[in-house]
C-alpha cells in the first residue's frame, strides 16, 4: 500500500488535542488514514452491533437514522442494527446494504422519557449477556434522533470508546455538567474529571460495554432507591464510569454534534449530528447574531474575526 510518509516533526493538527493524558487517541479529521485502518480491520472479520431506541414519537427518526447509517456507518463492513421500539409496525422498510442487517426488537415504553433513557443501559446489558456476545465483537449505543453526513468508519473501533460532548465549554474539572451531589452514585467530586462524554454515542468491545452498562444501571437503580435522579440521567452515570475506567479511544465532537450549536472551525467535519428539532430556535439565534453585528463597530478585522469563528453555512444564514 502506498501513502505519504508521516513526519515526526510535522504534526497533522496543532489546534486540538490528539492524544489524552493516558495516551488514548482522540479521533479528529485529518489525523488518520482510513485505508491503513481498513486493511488492518479486514483481516479480523469483526461484526459490529449498534443498539438504538425509537420509543413513542421517536419512531419518526428511524428512517433518517437507518438511511444515513446505511450509507455512512462502517461502509463495507458487517453491522447488525438492533432497533428497540414500542411500535414495530411503524418501522419503515429500508433497503440495507448486503453486509448490514436490521433486527427489530419490541420494547416496553415508560411514561417518563427519563426512565426510557435510563433503562436503555439495563436493556443493553441484558441483551449482551443473553445473545449479543455471541453475535458481535463490538457494540455501540447511539441515539436515534441523529443523522450521518460523513463517513464514520473503523476509526471508531476500540476496546472502550467515548465521544467528547459538543457541549463541553468549560474546563472539565469546573464543569457543572457532572453530577456533583454526593448522594448520587453518579457524583464526581469537584476538581476531578477528564472530559464530558455524550451518552448519545459510546461503545467498545462487547465485554467492556457489558461492564459499563451494568455498572451504570446499578448506579441508576441505587439512586432510584434513594429517591434521587442524576442531573443528566444515564449520561451522568456514564461520565462517572468513564472517569474511573478511562476510554481507550475518544471520538471528537465530529462524531456527535448537537445541531443546536454552531460549528466552530476546529470541527472540520460534521459526521453525525442530532436532527434539528425546532427550526424556530435557529431563526432566533440568527436574529441575535445579526443584531450583534449591528452593535459592533464595523471594521474589516472584526468581520474577519466573525467569519473566522463561523463556518460557511452559518455565514450564509447571516
Amino acid at each position, binding site marked *: *500500500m*502506498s*501513502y505519504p*510518509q*508521516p*513526519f*515526526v*516533526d*510535522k*504534526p*497533522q493538527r*496543532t*489546534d*486540538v*488535542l*490528539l*492524544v489524552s*493524558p*493516558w*495516551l*488514548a*487517541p482522540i*479521533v479528529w479529521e485529518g*489525523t*488518520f*488514514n482510513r485505508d*491503513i*485502518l481498513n486493511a*488492518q480491520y479486514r483481516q479480523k472479520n469483526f461484526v459490529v452491533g449498534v443498539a438504538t431506541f425509537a420509543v413513542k414519537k421517536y419512531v419518526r427518526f428511524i428512517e433518517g437514522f437507518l438511511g444515513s447509517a446505511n450509507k455512512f456507518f462502517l461502509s463495507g463492513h458487517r453491522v447488525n442494527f438492533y432497533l428497540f421500539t414500542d411500535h414495530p409496525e411503524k418501522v419503515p422498510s429500508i433497503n440495507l446494504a448486503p453486509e448490514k442487517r436490521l433486527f427489530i426488537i419490541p420494547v416496553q415504553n415508560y411514561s417518563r422519557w427519563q426512565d426510557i433513557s435510563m433503562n436503555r443501559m439495563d436493556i443493553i446489558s441484558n441483551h449482551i449477556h443473553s445473545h449479543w456476545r455471541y453475535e458481535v465483537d463490538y457494540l455501540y449505543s447511539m441515539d436515534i434522533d441523529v443523522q450521518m453526513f460523513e463517513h464514520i468508519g473503523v*476509526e471508531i473501533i476500540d476496546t472502550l470508546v467515548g465521544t467528547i460532548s*459538543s*457541549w*463541553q*465549554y*468549560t*474546563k*472539565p474539572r469546573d464543569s457543572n455538567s457532572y453530577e456533583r451531589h454526593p448522594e448520587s452514585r453518579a457524583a464526581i467530586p469537584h476538581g476531578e474529571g477528564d472530559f464530558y462524554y455524550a451518552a448519545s454515542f459510546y461503545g467498545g468491545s462487547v465485554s467492556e460495554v457489558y461492564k459499563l452498562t451494568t455498572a451504570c444501571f446499578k448506579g441508576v437503580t441505587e439512586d432510584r432507591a434513594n429517591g434521587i435522579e442524576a442531573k443528566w440521567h444515564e449520561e451522568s452515570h456514564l461520565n462517572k464510569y468513564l472517569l474511573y475506567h*478511562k476510554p481507550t*479511544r475518544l471520538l471528537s465532537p465530529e462524531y456527535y454534534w448537537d445541531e*443546536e*450549536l*454552531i460549528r*466552530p*472551525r*476546529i470541527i472540520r467535519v460534521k459526521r453525525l449530528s442530532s436532527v434539528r428539532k425546532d427550526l*424556530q*430556535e435557529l431563526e*432566533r*439565534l440568527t436574529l*441575535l*447574531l445579526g443584531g*450583534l453585528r449591528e452593535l459592533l463597530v464595523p471594521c474589516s478585522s472584526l468581520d474577519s474575526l466573525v467569519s473566522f*469563528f463561523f463556518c460557511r453555512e452559518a455565514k450564509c444564514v447571516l
Partner: protein
Amino acid sequence: ELWKSFLNLKSFLFSYFSFRMIYTKRSDVLMMTPWFAPIVWEGTYNSEILNEQFRQRNVTVGLTVFLACGRSAEATGPTFLETAETYFMVGHRVNYYIFTDRPEEVPKVALKEGRNVVVLQVQNYPRWQEISMRRMEMLSYFSQQRFINEVSYLVCVDVDMKFNDQVGVEILSDLFGTLHPGFYTAERRSFTYEHRPASQAYVPSDEGDFYYAGGFFGGTVTEVYKLTKKCHEAIMVDKANGIEAIWQEESHLNKYFLYHKPTKILSPEYLWDDNLGRPEILKKRRFLAVPKNHAAIRNK
C-alpha cells in the same frame, strides 16, 4: 427563549477556546501515527494516571538484555542495572532477564523490592553480527518457554546503554517500537531499509513509515513472540540464501513493523546518543548510548 440563544453563543465561543486552551501541550511534534499509535514524547502523558492503571493490573515487566557474549561485562553491566533501578518502571514489578555466556560475570546490583534478576545462559558466537541476530531466536524461544508465564510485557533493549531519565509504563502497549535517533526527521528514501529483493527484509523504495531502532522494542509477550519468531525465521531463510541484511536484525525488525504496525511508538527520547547533540525537540534524554570501545569489539 432568548437566554438559550445567549447560552448557545457563549457555549460556542468557549468551546472554541476550551478545546484549544486545555490541551495542546506539544504542538511541535507528531503525537499520533495515521493508524492511531500514540508517539510518546515528554508532555504528552500523565504519569500518575498511567501508573495507577498499571498498578491496578499488577503487571510485571520483563526487561531483556544480552550481556557479555564477546564483550566485557564490566564495561556495561553495572551501569545498565544500576540506572535501571533508578529509572526503569519505578514502583512496578520488574524481572531483568540477562542472557549471557558468562553467568559468573553478571554484576551483583542491589535491587528494590519486587524486582529480580534472572540469568539465562546462552551460547556465544564469534561474530558480533551473528550474536546480534541470534537474539531474535533466543527471545522467541524464551518467550514461549518462560516469559509468557512470568511477565505481562517484554522490553527488549541493547545493553551498552544507561538510563538517564524516567522510562515507565507510558511505553507499554501491545507492540511498540522506537524511532531511531539518526532518522526521525529523515525522508523515507534515506531510511537504511534493506533494499535488495533477495533478502527477506526487503522493503520497496516507495514504502515505509519510520525507521525503527533495533535497540529498543517490546510489547505483550505474545506480540514479542510473534515478532521475534518471524524475524528469526526470516534471518534463517536469508542465511540459507547466502545473504545477510544490511543492518542485521534491525532490518528485519523494520520490515516486520511496516506490515505489522506498532500500537505505540517511542520518540528518540527513549534511545539517544549524545553524539547527536541536543536538539530543541528533545525535552528529555531517557536512555543513552554508552561510548563503545569499537576497536575491541569489531571483527577484523
